[in-house]
């Protein structure tokens, strides 16, 4: 409005000036003629007005341009502020949720700027740059486990690959590892190595936290529980392995064969039939060795199973010579089995782990043998006492040792 008044005053001033000039001109050039000087005066006024209007419009136009530039500057200032804000965001595990919110907020500001930039040329590229910066901030500072930069065709800078471990990234890795193992994409050796690496990364992470006392204090009880759960899950992989072991065809086959061999004492078999069973046992045990190679079964557990098969197969065929003497004492058999198994059992315990199946099948047989030795069976006792080479004290020592070992396994629960 001020501009209009200014213009009106200006036009009026010019008009008056022209009028005075025109009156003087009339007197000099056109004495006695009114109309012509008046027309010329109006013409001149209109020309001046046209010139002034053009100038004014140009001024309006340049004012508009200035407004756009100003607007752009404002956007750029906003961008600069956002940029500075992003650069100030440093890795902070405890405040990660807060940082995530902050980045979401920044993302919102950027989105608003982008929509504004549809009409403002020249801003889009800059905004894209800022967006990239935000995204890399997200990756490296917040959830990210990796940051890769400086990549050109085929070349990757070793300095650019930086792995940032977080509890969630390790959990994610562990879940994927278990999935890959179940899908048989990786074998047990890779599983073991990768698990060891995760555990080590995890320990490092905890160590890092410990160096920053406030970080540990800052963990909520939920997060602390999560940490404990994760440790337990990691240490529980062994059990999962054994679950895997039990699903192998070799393991299923040996289980089925075990049932057959266990019945040999009661089934009546010819020597040919027994030979076939022995051959089958050999074949199944060889197959089981493959699981030992794969690390699914410990060598101690294998030897224990092997020894038990050997014991179970010590039966005589029904087609033996009529004069052959058959040892029928269950106590002698039980004692022999105990003597054979105890060193293997000790070895397996020393290895730290014994799987559940071995526990169920082998340890329970030890218990049965102990029970047999304690049973009163006059016929068997006669054979037992007549043929044994050990003293009563030796036998009691074997029994005591067996009981101790079984008790230890059951107490420690390390059969899983």
């Amino acid at each position, binding site marked *: 409005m001020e501009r209009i008044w200014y213009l009106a005053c200006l036009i009026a001033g010019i008009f008056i000036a022209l009028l005075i000039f025109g009156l003087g001109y009339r007197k000099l050039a056109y004495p006695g003629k009114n109309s012509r000087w008046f027309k010329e005066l109006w013409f001149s006024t209109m020309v001046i007005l046209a010139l002034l209007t053009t100038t004014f419009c140009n001024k309006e136009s340049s004012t508009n341009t200035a407004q756009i530039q100003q607007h752009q500057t404002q956007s750029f200032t906003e961008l600069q502020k956002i940029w500075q804000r992003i650069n100030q965001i440093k890795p902070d595990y405890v405040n990660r949720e807060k940082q995530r919110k902050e980045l979401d907020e920044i993302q919102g500001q950027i989105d608003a700027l982008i929509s504004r930039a549809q009409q403002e040329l020249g801003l889009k590229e800059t905004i894209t740059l800022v967006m990239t910066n935000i995204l890399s901030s997200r*990756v490296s500072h917040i959830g990210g486990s990796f940051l890769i930069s400086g990549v*050109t065709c085929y070349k990757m*800078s070793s300095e650019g690959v930086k792995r940032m471990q977080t509890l969630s990234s390790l959990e994610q890795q562990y879940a994927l590892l278990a999935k890959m193992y179940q899908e048989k994409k990786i074998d047990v050796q890779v599983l073991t190595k990768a698990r060891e690496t995760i555990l*080590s990364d995890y320990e490092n992470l905890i160590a890092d936290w410990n160096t920053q006392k406030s970080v540990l204090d800052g963990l909520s009880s939920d997060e602390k529980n999560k940490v404990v759960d994760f440790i337990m899950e990691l240490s529980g992989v062994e059990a999962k392995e054994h679950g895997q072991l039990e699903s192998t065809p070799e393991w299923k086959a040996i289980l089925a064969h075990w049932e057959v061999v266990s019945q040999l004492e009661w089934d009546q078999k010819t020597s040919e039939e027994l030979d076939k069973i022995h051959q089958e046992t050999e074949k199944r045990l060889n197959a089981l060795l493959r699981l030992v190679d794969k690390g699914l079964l410990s060598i101690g557990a294998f030897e224990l199973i092997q020894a038990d098969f050997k014991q179970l197969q010590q039966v005589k065929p029904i087609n033996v010579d009529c004069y052959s003497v058959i040892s029928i004492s269950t106590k002698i058999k039980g004692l022999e089995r105990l003597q054979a198994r105890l060193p293997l059992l000790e070895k397996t315990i020393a290895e730290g782990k014994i799987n559940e199946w071995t526990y169920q099948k082998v340890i329970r047989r030890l218990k049965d043998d102990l029970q047999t030795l304690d049973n009163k069976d006059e016929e068997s006792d006669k054979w037992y006492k007549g043929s044994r080479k050990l003293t009563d004290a030796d036998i009691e020592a074997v029994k005591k040792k067996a009981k101790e070992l079984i008790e230890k396994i059951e107490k420690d629960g390390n059969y899983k």
Partner: protein
Amino acid sequence: MGIISKLKDAFLVNRQDSIIFEVTQKCNNDCLFCYNAWKADKNYPQGELSTAETKGLIRRIVKETSCKQLTFTGGEPFLRADLPELITCAKELGVAINIISNGTLITEDIARDYIKLGVGLFELPLLSAERTTHDALSRNQGAFDKVVESVANIKLHRGRVVTVFVGTKRNIDGLKEMIELSLAIGADGIMFNRFNVGGEGIRHIDELLPTPAQVIKALETIESAMDQYKIGISCSIPIQPCIIDTSRFKKVHFGYCAAGTKRAYYTVDPMGNLRMCNHTPSILGNILKSSFKELTTKQKIKPFMDAVPEFCKDCQMVKTCQGGCKAAAEVSSAGCSLCAEEPFLKKYKNEWLKKGLAPLERASVAD
């Protein structure tokens, strides 16, 4: 970065970020997509120098280029028995060491020893999460299991490893599973390279070259994996924005040809022959006979740097994209022309542009 290093960067015109050193041409894989220059050109000089001579060559490379990083590759670098000696030599010169390997020979002991020697990064191919697919593309039975175990071995000894997925028509649909497998075994990063024609790959273009639709799907998979697993995945082989709208994929880092710049990856073969990159078979000269400066004068490298396909000349993205991989254009064109269109561009540009899906102004020019 130290002050001296910064000053060196500022004043040494010839200082290169990284040099690729092909220590041997031998390989125990026979990958269908192999880009080794000697596989493209049967007349390419063969052979390798003795240990002492190779150490001399390493000293020469580092002195001439003042490079910060030396990437040992091949062939298969672990087939060279003297590799530890060569790496020790390079380490003594103060450069960072990377190894690009096919990953079939890295036992736990080797991983431990090389990490101890100072190898900063291993780049190993992982072409699929399926044994059969990886082994078929590598033409090496059992390669998959060895690569997977190698990654685990490197991680076990606290080394850094990047798995590289070469996206071909045959395996590109399994990218997600490969990413998950890489993460499971502890890879520090993942590189996605669409199949780039070169070397042995020239003989398998139709069989291996992925379609744009496949590459788009792969890029979508990458973005989704980046969200889900919070990882960075780079896309190194140039993808022409007129074929695929790369601006859609804001999280993916796209690499373009850096030839002639400080970030170039000049390549030296086992005999000391210098090339613009590991893809091109064109030799600039021998670094043992001439200085790096003499071999990389503007006059010598300008033809490579300025080469752009006719189709791309008016494109607003030409300075960045440069028409894609010039070496791929060179080895796959009849006249070995750097200005030819590389197969990915040649095969798909017209088809794609006709559909009106090209994102750039270039599309209207082409119509």
